[in-house]
């Protein structure tokens, strides 16, 4: 991609495991273990995978809410992986996050107006006098009445709270929003409302999104490109349609085949994976997926497969995937 908004290379987030007694380091959790990603302006990259695959940690490391232990994060052409707090400040305005749980991510003791004015106060934007107008404009943008500013988060439903979370993320007019399972906690009829809202805002404002989600059907409605993670690594990256209809990595194929279809009697041939995802503290040698892989060869237990480009924009980290 020429001049991507965000380019992440070899990103690592390793957490030490310390013994409870002498605080010695006794091991390492490789939550994110060499991740490469690119996001273009105005595009949506979906980051998918199951619990513990490192997708949320990757998102938080990109936002520098967690410090990466290695690798590079270039945002708008500037390397920010090692920036300290003061040099990060301007980037904090340009990248925002929407959290999964709309009940836990809004301060229950602040009014919605206070929550939405906070970003302007922190970044010293405008004057206290013009804040109510800015807040009203944000509420209008996400489809809430301006009276909502005087009320508290508990007075709203889950879907409305997620709209407030989105309004807060929009306040500083960011270029990139990371949505960490933004619709997972919502009922399906409300989920559709929030997905449509996020797509409309993207079209109006040219926002780039990283959508972190375990829900592949939701992802198929919002993503331009998809990266699939397994145990800290990206195993496959492809444009949306290619990923859903021509996946090459055996893990991606198994993941897709497990998605239940809302059509009785028309289920895909299912490939049920055996066993559980191994612990990221003790990942298998070689390809992380090999102990559960239906086509693994001896080589897979020894050598880490590197991402191989099989078509423009389509990379697969598998020794055996068809080219």
């Amino acid at each position: 991609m020429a001049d991507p908004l965000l380019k992440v290379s070899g990103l690592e987030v390793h957490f030490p495991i310390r013994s409870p007694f002498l605080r010695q380091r006794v091991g390492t959790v490789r939550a994110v273990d060499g991740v490469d990603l690119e996001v273009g302006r105005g595009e949506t990259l979906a980051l998918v995978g199951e619990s513990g695959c490192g997708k949320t940690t990757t998102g938080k490391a990109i936002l520098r809410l967690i410090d990466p232990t290695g690798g590079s994060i270039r945002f708008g052409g500037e390397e920010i992986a090692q920036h300290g707090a003061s040099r990060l400040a301007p980037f904090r305005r340009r990248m925002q996050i929407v959290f999964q749980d709309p009940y836990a991510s809004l301060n229950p003791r602040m009014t919605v107006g206070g929550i939405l004015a906070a970003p302007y106060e922190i970044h010293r934007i405008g004057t206290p006098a013009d804040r109510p107008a800015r807040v009203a404009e944000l509420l209008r943008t996400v489809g809430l009445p301006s009276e909502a500013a005087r009320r508290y988060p508990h007075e709203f439903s889950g879907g409305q709270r997620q709209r407030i979370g989105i309004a807060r993320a929009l306040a500083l007019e960011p270029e990139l929003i990371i949505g960490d399972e933004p619709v997972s906690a919502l009922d399906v009829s409300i989920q559709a409302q929030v997905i449509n809202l996020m797509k409309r805002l993207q079209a109006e404002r040219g926002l780039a999104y990283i959508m972190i989600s375990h829900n592949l059907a939701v992802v198929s409605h919002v993503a331009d490109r998809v990266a699939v993670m397994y145990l800290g690594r990206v195993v496959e990256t492809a444009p949306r349609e290619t990923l859903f209809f021509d996946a090459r990595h055996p893990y991606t194929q198994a993941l897709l085949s497990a998605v239940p279809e809302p059509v009785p009697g028309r289920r895909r041939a299912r490939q049920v994976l055996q066993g559980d995802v191994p612990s990221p503290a003790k990942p298998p040698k070689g390809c992380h997926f090999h102990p559960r892989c239906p086509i693994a060869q001896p080589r897979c237990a020894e050598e880490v497969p590197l991402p191989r480009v099989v078509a423009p924009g389509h990379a697969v980290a598998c020794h055996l995937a068809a080219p």
Partner: protein
Amino acid sequence: MSAAASLPDETGAAAAEAPLLSVRDLTLHIPVPPHVLRAVDGVSFDLRRGETLGLVGESGSGKTLTALMLMRLLEPPLAALPRGEVRLDGADLMTLDEKRMSALRGRTISMVFQEPMTSLNPVMTVGRQIAEPLVRHLGLSSREAAARAEEMLRLVHIPDPARVARAYPHLLSGGMRQRAMIAIALACRPAVLVADEPTTALDVTVQAQILELLAELQREMGSAILLITHDLAVIAETAHRVAVMYAGRIVEEAPVAALFAAPRHPYTRGLLASIPKIERVPAPTLPEIPGMVPGAGDRPRGCAFMPRCARAVSGCAAEPPPLAETDRGHRVACWNPAHG
């Protein structure tokens, strides 16, 4: 193996048989002065031997409370409030004393909960938790029960069952815990299994394993399953019949194929349309149901869906529509239902 192949013929022997579990007018009105929360409002359905009935609805629709009522698991002060009739094998569960109810619970009717971590006992080994109902209900000796517990763990495809039987729940993964809970629930081969969101907390590949397992055990034991979920895709794959709940009532009930092919209630239609599906060319926007579910304290006097309904007519505000049969086995509670 495909789910379709495992579905019994809806018009076959199962349908002709008398229902195993019969629920009539189940109601839970909770007085919270000055309001009355109509959490569950006259729910009726039948469950036949070997059949899976999906009970589907969004948060607050009353589906979990319905399950807790028929298991008689509501805690005081709510325990005194349920009204209606729940017939299982001739007995009315609503009027049984607690002693007779506990003799049935875990033996004739048992339940699998959503969150396996909070519903397993953290200080008791997995093996003892499976053995407990076997000793209590079937009078097995503790040694026999321990052997059967291991057998159950093998049946739910837990590798190394002897080791897992001696383990405590926190050592197991989410999928393994859910398997262990299914092993406990099915230990006494109950006639009815109530499964409340049994796969919601699990990853999709593990969900596929658990749904496969439930279908397999059902074929083997012939249990009837009441599957409670918010996920219509799970229903499409596992259930024979579906009842859709909205605001404390069943609004539509039909064989699974009929409900998905020709939904008649505007809420069911909206719900089905709003599920994202994996398609080559997705629609630019997902169909939405406008507005939100009314709270249990401020439901409209007539049809609770009316404020969000595009098909609403003048009569809808006056009185809630009764659940009436439109085609064989297809019931709809709507004053202006859509045509298939």
